[in-house]
């Protein structure tokens, strides 16, 4: 039995190709993939950055072919006729320990486009749940995925890989959290209505910002954005009035002259209660006069300030990646040990069966004499069972406790040879009778 993984991700396939293989509901395709002969268990992960199928199979070589066919026939949706060639070049195939390590890295967000991003773990959990609901996930993959979730948790707790924000919008939200206790009762003024403003607004909304006013040269564009974020739209001529009632000002608008001059902000500060004003200038060229930062109670940050922080945080995440990889390797070894122990089950069963056969035969032989001497049969049975159990306890425990797969397989082989578990039953018994 082995684990096989086939998939594509943002590094191996362009979005134009990935989007044809993305799956909304993994249940139906999984039901077609799993059977009794080749694929015993399967999980299908589909996110915007990757599509991967992971299976537990008794026949790895056949499973590989089955998975390729699965991508080509079941997952391809509206793919162009020549997509097959691109698909062949974009798919990666991993087996055994490599597949396990890949899954752990994906769940721990080491393999993500943005290192340490938190969404991927939830997506892996969703994929696992969908497989369980589709009846495609059994005890092996359940154990594998639980181990993957635990690994991701360890990486998150023991490293700083996900601690600091790496996008300018998130840095801006974190910055707001250093100034304000909460954004729920704060008013934001956004100057501009481009993509950057929209992204920053989405992030601020997630952080709890409630009141939003959007000012733009083109009022229609401001109105469109305001309607999406439940805000109000304004023209640039209203800026001085809006400034006085704002706590967060975010600007990203074209033009070479600053939209907010020092005098504007000074005038606004005079007419408002004493509370801090956070100004985030994401415009290039800058939209806010830099001398505004000299005013008491005003905290001005431009796109370079925020970008520097985002880059420093990304660098810290890259450093933490080494530690995260070490944790993943350690957990892979543990899972490997569990698989090795699982492989020991038939050997342990054979060993116990053989010992029981010998015990029963010897009891049968001695029963007549001992019963004549007044020893009850029950006592003889109890005594011999106890002896067998005690003799087998140490070897069985040793077989179960293998942590390294290679070493575990070698130990199993040695155990089978030492206890003659692979020979013909009649021959073994005859040999034992001869020895006796």
């Amino acid at each position, binding site marked *: 039995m082995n684990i096989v993984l086939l998939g594509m991700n943002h590094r191996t396939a362009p979005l134009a190709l990935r989007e044809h293989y993305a799956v909304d509901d993994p249940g139906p395709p999984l039901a077609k993939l799993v059977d009794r002969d080749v694929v015993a268990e399967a999980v299908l992960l589909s996110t915007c950055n990757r599509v991967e199928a992971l299976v537990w199979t008794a026949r790895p070589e056949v499973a590989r072919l089955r998975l390729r066919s699965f991508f080509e026939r079941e997952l391809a949706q509206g793919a162009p006729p020549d997509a097959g060639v691109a698909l062949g070049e974009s798919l990666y195939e991993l087996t055994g320990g490599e597949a396990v390590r890949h899954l752990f890295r994906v769940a721990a967000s080491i393999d993500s486009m943005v290192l340490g991003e938190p969404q991927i773990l939830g997506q892996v959990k969703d994929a696992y749940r969908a497989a369980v609901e589709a009846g495609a996930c059994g005890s092996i993959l359940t154990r594998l995925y639980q181990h993957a979730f635990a690994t991701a948790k360890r990486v998150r707790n023991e490293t700083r890989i996900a601690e600091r924000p790496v996008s300018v919008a998130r840095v801006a939200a974190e910055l707001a959290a250093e*100034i304000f*206790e909460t954004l729920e009762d704060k008013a934001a003024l956004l100057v501009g209505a481009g993509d950057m403003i929209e992204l920053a607004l989405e992030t601020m909304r997630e952080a709890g910002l409630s009141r939003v006013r959007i000012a733009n040269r083109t009022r229609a564009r401001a109105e469109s954005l305001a309607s999406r974020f439940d805000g109000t739209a304004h023209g640039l001529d209203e800026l001085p009035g809006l400034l006085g009632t704002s706590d967060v000002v975010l600007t990203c608008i074209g033009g070479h002259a600053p939209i907010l001059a020092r005098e504007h902000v000074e005038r606004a500060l005079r007419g408002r209660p004493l509370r801090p004003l956070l100004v985030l200038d994401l415009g290039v060229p800058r939209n806010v006069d830099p001398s505004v930062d000299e005013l008491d*109670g005003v905290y001005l940050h431009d796109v370079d300030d925020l970008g520097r922080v985002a880059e420093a945080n990304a660098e810290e995440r890259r450093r933490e990646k080494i530690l995260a990889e070490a944790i993943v390797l350690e957990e892979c070894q543990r899972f490997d040990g569990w698989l090795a122990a699982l492989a020991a089950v038939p050997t342990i069963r054979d060993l116990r069966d053989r010992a029981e056969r010998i015990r029963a035969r010897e009891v049968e032989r001695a029963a007549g004499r001992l019963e004549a001497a007044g020893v009850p049969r029950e006592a003889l049975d109890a005594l011999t069972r106890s002896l067998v159990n005690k003799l087998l306890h140490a070897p069985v425990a040793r077989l179960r406790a293998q942590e390294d797969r290679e070493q575990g397989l070698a130990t199993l082989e040695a155990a089978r040879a030492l206890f003659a578990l692979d020979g013909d039953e009649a021959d073994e018994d005859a040999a034992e009778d001869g020895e006796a």
Partner: protein
Amino acid sequence: MSADLHALTAAIYLTASVLATLGLALRRAAFSRTAVAVLAAGAVVHAIAFFESPAFALPPRNAGLPGAADLAAWLGTVVFLGLVRRARLHALAVLVAPAAFLGVFVGSFALDPASLAAREQAPAWAHAHVLLASAGFALLGVAGAAGLLYLAQHRSLKRKTRLGQRALLPPLEALDRVNAFTVSVGFLLLSLALVTGVLWTHATTGALWPRSPHANAALVAWAIYAALVGARFLARQGAAWSARSAAAGFAFLVLAVAGVGVWR
């Protein structure tokens, strides 16, 4: 028994100080949160020590500085624990915990039998004065600590260093709110302490003003705080200047109340 509890309190406050310092140094919010929990445990042991000891029995019989410092340490810790429940202020423990330890340490000098006997004779106004002054001192101490952290955070934001390190220091807004609350209530208590001090002097000597360096320095400290409160609430002083004022005002208060008392 009380001396043991007192020593235990000091040890717990010291542990909280170390944890809070580690929290800031290693940028681990968990350490700061643990420090607050340890500080809370210290406050409970401290309260038990009060009830166990004749030296610290409430209302306070102790008119001396060591006992007042001890009481102020406990009150300051309790005020901080009350505030931390309402806002993200855990990092403030880095200043509150060492101050509490220092207060308990100074308070240990109040345990000698001669001091205890002298305090039994103190009039009722003395008890009220010590209680109010200790509470005012504690609140203004928290205000000073909040002011210092405000300045650290303000400086970091203005210099654009260490940005985006959420939970390392409390948000400016929370620190300013703590500052406004503790300065206003602390000033009120300090004013009442001054009035009860005058009544105590009048009850024992018949004079209206003791003319001691301690009393004169305390009056100057009160006047400074009156100016600070006026600037803050009447003249719309900015938050950064209020923080500077709170930190400087408390430094002067320590000098006035403790320094003059020690070096006279």
